[in-house]
């Protein structure tokens, strides 16, 4: 079968529901999915934040301090650390008045090389058309 591409589309904001967190934790779980797969098979996830979902990528989240739970920010940084692409829709950021300087752009503090990619919705649509499976959260 080989590599199967999967796109996680997050359209809900953080903390109000579990959706964004579940998208991130499921995407990260691709790293250990091989224990259930045949040799040579793999799942290649990309996670993209669109609509109100772009709010998940706002930096300096205080969830650990305020709620005592892991922040969405730390999950996003974990994605970057394991080279899992994180995309954010530029048009939806603009709609909410967000600039790149407001966002999680990297996880250099964790030693990650991969950076957040700010993309147009046309790029998101192109990716949606190319992947095998599409999951909306």
């Amino acid at each position, binding site marked *: 079968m080989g590599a199967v591409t999967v796109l996680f589309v997050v359209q809900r904001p953080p903390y109000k*529901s579990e959706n964004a967190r579940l998208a991130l934790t499921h995407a990260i779980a691709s790293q250990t999915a091989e224990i259930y797969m045949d040799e040579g098979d793999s799942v290649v996830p990309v996670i993209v934040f669109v609509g109100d979902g772009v709010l998940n990528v706002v930096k300096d989240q205080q969830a650990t301090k305020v709620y005592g739970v892991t922040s969405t920010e730390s999950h996003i940084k974990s994605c970057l650390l394991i080279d899992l692409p994180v995309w954010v829709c530029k048009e939806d950021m603009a709609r909410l008045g967000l600039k790149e300087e407001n966002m999680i752009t990297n996880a250099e503090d964790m030693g990650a090389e991969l950076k957040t990619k700010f993309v147009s919705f046309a790029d998101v649509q192109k990716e949606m058309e190319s992947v095998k*499976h599409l999951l909306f959260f």
Partner: protein
Amino acid sequence: MGELTIGVFSSLVGSMSLDFAFKLADAGIGKGHKVNLWLSGNAVMMAKKGQKAFKDYSHNEKLMKELMGKGMEITVCEACAEARGYHKEDVPEGMKRASMDWYLAKMVKTDRLLHIGGE
């Protein structure tokens, strides 16, 4: 025949998504397809045996057991279940528990994936 994997993330009570998923699974199995079901997030409410059937609330245990008897594989997210106080001994007979990578791995071989998000 094909293989269908359904991932459900919404709760048993307060949403009809699980009811829909079981009806779709029933139809798929009826047509000879292999069907897998992944329950995560609030959908792990299905991972508690002995739920009472009230007319006012969704109750899928009977259909779920029938479908498992016909070969449907149902796996529930272990972390999501434990976080809600549903333990191993609570799980209905035939239902499995696994970590999220089980769902990811199913995406490789399945012909179609239907992901039903949470509330």
